[in-house]
């Protein structure tokens, strides 16, 4: 699984627009739509079939599912915005933690951050990573 490790390493570091590192995600993961984890960083809290099903439902119908939040590895995040139209959903836990989940054709790219980064920055980064996966046909 070393190829996934390399990908996870590049997903973990959030670049600033000028190319320098703005900071690192606290945890990240790439998984399929059924909840099987392909690759994950240290400290990633986990992801399972149930959470994947709930995420699929949120993407498909964000208006009805908004009140349920986003749950990753048992931690609940307040759902902010997004859905299938945007290809991404974003969430917040307290004022410090945030999550960005990008859905590609076959995968979820999940980035979790702490107070060293803003969800906005993380979103642009994780979405760009999602573009890369999509370009690889995943």
């Amino acid at each position, binding site marked *: 699984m070393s190829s996934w490790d390399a990908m996870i390493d590049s997903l973990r570091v959030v670049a*600033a*627009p*000028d190319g320098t590192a*703005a900071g690192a995600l606290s945890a990240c993961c790439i998984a399929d739509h059924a909840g099987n984890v392909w690759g994950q960083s240290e400290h990633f809290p986990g992801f399972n079939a149930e959470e994947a099903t709930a995420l699929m439902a949120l993407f498909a119908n*964000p*208006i009805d599912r*908004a*009140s*349920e*939040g986003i749950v990753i590895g048992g931690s*609940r995040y*307040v*759902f*902010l*915005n*997004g*859905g299938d139209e*945007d290809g*991404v959903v*974003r969430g*917040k836990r*307290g*004022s410090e933690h945030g999550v960005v989940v990008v859905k590609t054709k076959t995968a979820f790219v999940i980035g979790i951050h702490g107070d060293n980064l*803003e*969800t*906005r*920055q993380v*979103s*642009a980064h994780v*979405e*760009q990573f999602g573009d890369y996966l999509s370009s690889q046909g995943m």
Partner: protein
Amino acid sequence: MYGGDEVSAVVLDLGTHSVKAGYAGQDTPQHVFTSSVGARAKGGDVDMTEGGSQSSRDIFVDSMGIRRDEVDVTSPYGENGMLEDWEAVEGIWEHALKKCLTIQTDEHPVLMSEPVHNSDGVRSKMVELMFEKYAPPALFLAKNPVLSSFAVGKASSLVIDIGGRNTTVTAVHEGYALQKSVTRSPLGGEALTDVILARLEKQKVEVRPRYAFTKKEKGDGEFTVKAVNHPKTSASYSLFKRREIVEDLKATVYQLNDHFFRGDEHKNVAGITYELPDGNTIEVGAERFQIPELLFQPDILKDLDVNVPSLSGDVKLKSIQELVLECINNSDVDVRKDLWGNLVLCGGGSMFTNMRERLDGALFDHAPQNVKTKVVASMNSVERRFSTWIGGSILASLGSFQQLWMSKQEYEEHGANLVLRKCP
């Protein structure tokens, strides 16, 4: 980093009613002017023009005081509440940046506000037009309610914004609008103005704009008023000027009742006398309570028996308390309690006497029993009217915000659509 602390950013809030522009870090916008612009098909006698040279129309910004033949008054906003007339938008930006603030646009980052329901297409178009035309070093799009929430020092709140064209209720959580929570009604400041105007016309009161008559002093404080006919005045200009008069009437005479208004109340209330620009006086009785009450009881519209286009759709009009309730029910269950305790009232349409108290009362009745409701509204009318701009001024001057700008370089590399990711 991109905006830089040495050069101050410009904050531009193009609302449906008025445009606010100024430098980040200031308490209030330096320039405020109407969002309505004059437009005339090219070919007529051109005096002063603004906007692009290839445009098909001459656009007149911030010069509604001057009546011009065959000039239509139009809004940059379309029916759907999003920017649509890009010639008008460009004219407004040109006026705000070059005429009012007189800046070198390629030196100042620009923070623009946007309606919370703005579409991806309109957002990208705003970014493209701004970078292509004015080449700022960086820009940012921020949603109106997020800025209004910052203006009262809150990262999380429920923002009730009574604006020109709309009343919009949005849950804001940690600096992000909960996009799917937003509820909206066309019952905003302008609709109330139109209801008042329609009522006056129904009562055969002629609201005459200043350009439509001359006024000469006869001596002893008496005036002779003579109608002047300008047949080439557009209907939209006439309407704009009549609305201006009614806006003043509304601000000085109309108010909310201090409790839920019942139909037969105030039948014998003393009327307030108001002098129109042509010297005619009118007296407004119970209606001065009844019309603002539409915000809380839209059904009253039936009793008023007037036809106001913006309110005549098929959809049932919702009261503010219904909008709030629906918005909270659309929000994450974990934040609902917090929202009830942090209700923020803002917008130019919220200026009626008793507004905050009435909202507090109406929401108290709807809130679950175990939660505390609290409505915050700035006592300072300027702060309430300009809350969106003020929030933008605060945000753009935060040190931690500087790394969030979308730079011109990023625009050149990734295109306008990057804004959807940079400013979600």
